[in-house]
């Protein structure tokens, strides 16, 4: 871990959907090195937070910042996101990565192959992306995100429902990416994974930011009763 990446922030961020407040006055900054993990029970607003931070969802009030300035559409090109359910084009593995590169006017087969090799998919470059296993599809989505050389990478439960080997490949890649200075913000329900990867944690419940601290403190001595209950597997919505 050598560099610290772009600083991602939310200021008094609130989001209403269908008259229901889904994010409630959230203010936080992701800075420093390592992987930032967003945790919380189902419906806590984790995915919506990522969507807002990536500019996919406009907040009802408040603002999202990147390096202190309000996030713009152009800023989104400095970011990448891997969704919980990977969205792959009906093309080959290689063509899926090429597509992301072409969107930025880049044609670089060597870089594409390097990205595929990083997630262990170089040998499958010519195969149909849609016929990969779930784990392989998620690894391809990660390779495609990395190909755009993002300064900020949002990962929404990228290893949910993956087998341990696929999860390990992704975790290894995440660690390496964060070590290269990319700001990695990971949503996960997997406490063990969070312990392995997190440098800091933001804990959400019912759309509110409940706890924000470094990972060691969060897992050893959570301040809030909600976080303690969640870690103990006793949190009930």
């Amino acid at each position, binding site marked *: 871990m050598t560099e610290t990446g772009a600083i991602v922030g939310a200021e008094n961020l609130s989001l209403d959907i269908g008259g229901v407040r889904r994010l409630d006055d959230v203010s936080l900054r992701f800075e420093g090195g390592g992987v930032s993990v967003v945790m919380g029970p189902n419906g806590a607003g984790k995915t919506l937070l990522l*969507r807002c931070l*990536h*500019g*996919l969802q406009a907040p009802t009030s408040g603002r999202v910042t990147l390096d202190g300035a309000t996030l713009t*559409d152009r800023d*989104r*090109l400095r*970011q*990448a*996101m891997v*969704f919980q359910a990977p*969205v792959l*084009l*009906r*093309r*080959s593995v290689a*063509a899926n990565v090429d*597509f*992301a590169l072409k*969107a*930025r006017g880049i044609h670089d087969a060597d870089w594409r192959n390097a990205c595929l090799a990083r997630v262990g998919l170089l040998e499958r470059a010519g*195969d*149909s*992306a*849609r*016929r990969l296993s779930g784990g392989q599809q998620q690894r391809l989505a990660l390779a495609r995100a990395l190909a*755009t050389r993002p300064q900020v990478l949002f990962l929404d439960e990228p290893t949910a429902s993956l087998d341990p080997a696929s999860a390990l490949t992704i975790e290894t890649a995440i660690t390496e990416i964060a070590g290269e200075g990319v700001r990695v913000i990971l949503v996960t329900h997997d406490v063990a994974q969070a312990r392995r990867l997190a440098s800091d944690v933001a804990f959400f419940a019912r759309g509110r930011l409940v706890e924000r601290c470094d990972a060691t403190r969060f897992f050893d001595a959570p301040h809030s009763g909600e976080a303690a209950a969640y870690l103990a597997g006793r949190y009930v919505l």
Partner: protein
Amino acid sequence: MAEAIALALGLVARGDADLFEIVLLSLRVSLTATAVACVLGLTLGAFLAVARFPGRGAALVALNALMGLPPVVVGLLVYLHLSRSGPLGFLGLLYTPTAMIVAQTVLITPIVAALSRQVIEDLHREYADQFRSLGLTRWQSMGALLWDGRFSLLTVAMAGFGRAVAEVGAVMIVGGNIDHLTRVMTTAIALETSKGDLPLALALGLVLMVIALGVNAGVQALRLPGERVAHA
């Protein structure tokens, strides 16, 4: 019916020159109209699938309604434009195969646009977040959606071709059913029916259906291996 089948087989077997001339003109007119309608209709369909603007709902309703355009009305409108006193009369296209292509294009473009809009919008719903995440422009999104949906859109094109090759009202009005010039399968069938030669009309109808079946079978034969190679 047996007489009609025998007659149809006889026309084909002895290589009836008139029949083949009519068949080739039918294919030329309808395939060209389908190609032009696809260029226009797929672009419009993709735009409507991706774009959001005031009045979009009304535009979709209007487009869907245009799918039911009566061929004779289309023929009449094209006739009024292409007739000597019409705004495009100077082109001298009335009673030519080009006029028939124009009429069929007008007739099937809304079909291609409306059906492709639905296909592409369904695909866009799946891809939208990823495209926004990658920072694609609207035109880049449209291009990617058209490419990824190309096999479904082939069915849309076939629907357009089916409508074009089967219609008679529009080509009759703007083509005039002139022997050796603008006579196509459907106008020939109408003519033979009016003359009371029902077996020949039926035989021509059978040939027309076989042609439509052949074109669709050909497209399907190309589509299946294409899907495998293209990772669709």
